[in-house]
């Protein structure tokens, strides 16, 4: 160990408890790292150095008083669609360039209650719409493994910050892959929890039946610990599942021998890079050597329809959610004309190209004459996708797939071809549509860039996929935990 910012959250926690260093020293180490690399990465939209220093002092007081939790003193990046009272929250959009929330989201409230430290608000594709963080009104985030490449998206800032050492862990949000895909491309661990597991109160809405907040960290233990910290039931979100939450860390270190793992063949398609396939094949052998029973004779034929289903349902919900940005109550407000003129000017100026494209797609899919053909049809096929997963989980404990078909792609490569960009989510969309938990964790490099392994679980089975992920990770060396920036 050379620098404090290189630690995992649990290593940092051990050091803090043993009084090897203070939370203030840990935070200063991370802030210095941000100073050193942020101009090359652009992981943050807003830095909150003073908030961080204050929270670090409070954390030290808690260690002194014996009231520290497993997240006390841990420096976090918080995706900029998670509202933070008194700290500008933009959702990556000009529309909310001056928006200072008057309240806290549930998850930020939980982080504060746990004594965590916020380093800044992480960059993202505007309103979480994108797979490269190039659709941010505040400039693209770069991949710390190769700054000519994208970090993935939409939680690209959250994933890049963890990989670059600009925080120890982060919060992202996943609608169709927005935690897992950037985690895979940046070589870190990301978890999309079961829909309803983490409160959406204070999360700027994109696709309400799909959005879910989740953790990104340097190893599985950190991700499990963060989920325990943020995942409590919240009556302010009517979709927050009231079921009791088991302690996730309880699952770690348990034997995975005998776990039945299905490998659906529809995820091994044309267009998947050879280097990714090689790493995934190795990962399957490694899981087998841990005693898992791997079954590659599994077909989920509805998989191929997930992309269309998602890109009809999510934009439809988005078109409704983003109707609130009308220049009247908050956000950008163009003035001078009539009410309708001002509303159109506000939305023309405030939204970027991808957001307009999704709103158009959604309004079209919901409009008279097309509703049955597109939106309703997509909802019915969503049922079929969900049923197919449900049936598979009667036979398997988990499903294992690649997280993405390829490694991080060059900046600008897919910007002019929206459909090519959407294809990057092809492996993360099916479980999102079904509301299932899914973990992405590093499984080696291809062409010097990280490859992600995805482990999909049944409803509420975060514990099982974290258990398998933890065992798998334990079998890998830790040489590639941080990007060589």
């Amino acid at each position, binding site marked *: 160990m050379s620098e404090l910012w290189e630690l995992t959250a649990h290593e940092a926690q051990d050091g803090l408890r043993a009084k090897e260093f203070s939370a203030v020293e840990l935070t200063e180490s991370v802030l210095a790292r941000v100073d050193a690399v942020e101009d090359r990465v652009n992981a943050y939209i807003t830095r909150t150095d003073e908030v961080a220093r204050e929270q670090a002092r409070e954390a030290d007081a808690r260690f002194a008083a014996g009231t520290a939790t497993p997240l006390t003193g841990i420096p976090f990046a918080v995706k900029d669609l998670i509202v933070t009272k008194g700290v500008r929250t933009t959702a990556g959009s000009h529309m909310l360039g001056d928006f200072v929330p008057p309240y806290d989201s549930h998850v930020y409230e939980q982080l504060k209650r746990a004594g965590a430290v916020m380093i800044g608000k992480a960059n993202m594709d505007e309103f979480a719409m994108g797979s490269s963080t190039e659709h941010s009104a505040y400039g693209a985030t770069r991949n710390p493994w190769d700054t000519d490449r994208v970090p993935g998206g939409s939680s690209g800032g959250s994933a890049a910050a963890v990989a670059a050492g600009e925080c120890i862990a982060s919060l992202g949000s996943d609608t169709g892959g927005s935690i897992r895909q950037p985690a895979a491309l940046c070589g870190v661990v990301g978890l999309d929890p079961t829909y309803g597991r983490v409160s959406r109160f204070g999360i700027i809405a994109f696709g309400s039946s799909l959005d879910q907040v989740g953790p990104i960290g340097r190893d599985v233990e950190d991700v499990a610990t963060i989920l325990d910290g943020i995942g409590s039931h919240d009556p302010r979100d009517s979709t927050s599942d009231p079921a009791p939450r088991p302690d996730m860390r309880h699952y770690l270190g348990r034997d995975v021998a005998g776990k039945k793992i299905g490998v659906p063949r529809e995820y091994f398609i044309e267009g998947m890079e050879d280097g990714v396939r090689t790493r995934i094949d190795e990962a399957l052998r490694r899981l087998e050597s841990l005693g898992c029973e791997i079954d590659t004779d599994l077909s989920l034929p509805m998989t191929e*329809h997930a992309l269309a289903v998602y890109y009809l349902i999510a934009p439809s919900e988005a078109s409704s959610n983003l109707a609130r940005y009308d220049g*009247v109550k908050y956000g950008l407000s163009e003035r001078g004309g009539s009410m309708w003129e001002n509303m159109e000017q506000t939305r023309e100026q405030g939204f970027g190209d991808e957001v307009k494209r999704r709103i*158009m797609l959604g309004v079209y899919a919901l409009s008279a004459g097309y509703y049955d053909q597109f939106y309703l049809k997509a909802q*019915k096929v969503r049922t079929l996708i969900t049923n197919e997963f449900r049936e598979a989980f009667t036979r398997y404990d988990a499903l294992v797939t690649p997280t993405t078909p390829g490694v991080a792609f060059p900046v600008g490569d897919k910007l002019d071809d929206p459909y090519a960009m959407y294809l990057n989510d092809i492996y993360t969309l099916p479980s999102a549509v079904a509301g299932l938990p899914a973990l992405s964790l590093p499984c080696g490099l291809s062409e010097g860039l990280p490859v992600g392994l995805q482990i999909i679980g049944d409803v509420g089975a975060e514990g099982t996929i974290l258990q398998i992920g933890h065992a798998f990770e334990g079998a890998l060396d830790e040489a590639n935990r941080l990007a060589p920036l």
Partner: protein
Amino acid sequence: MYDRAMPISRDQVVHVGRLARLGLTDAEIDRLTLQLSDILDHFEALAAVDTDGIEPTAHPLPLHNVMRTDSVAPSLARDDALSNAPEVEDGLIRVRAVLE
């Protein structure tokens, strides 16, 4: 760019753009006509999926009509709620005339 009929016409894009109040420019309308047509083309296979008798999923959780007790609790103070409003007068949000 396309050999066959576009799934979405320029007139439809204009219509949808008006419904969404996006104030689209002519250049944006042209570009969106091509891009949305390309995207919708790829969604064609969905029509062939047999969904007879299948209920639509609006939501992945089997939670319905979540109720809370009707009890008084503190809410956001008015000044806080108005803190991001573009124009405020007498504790109210000032808007343009709807009828002229």
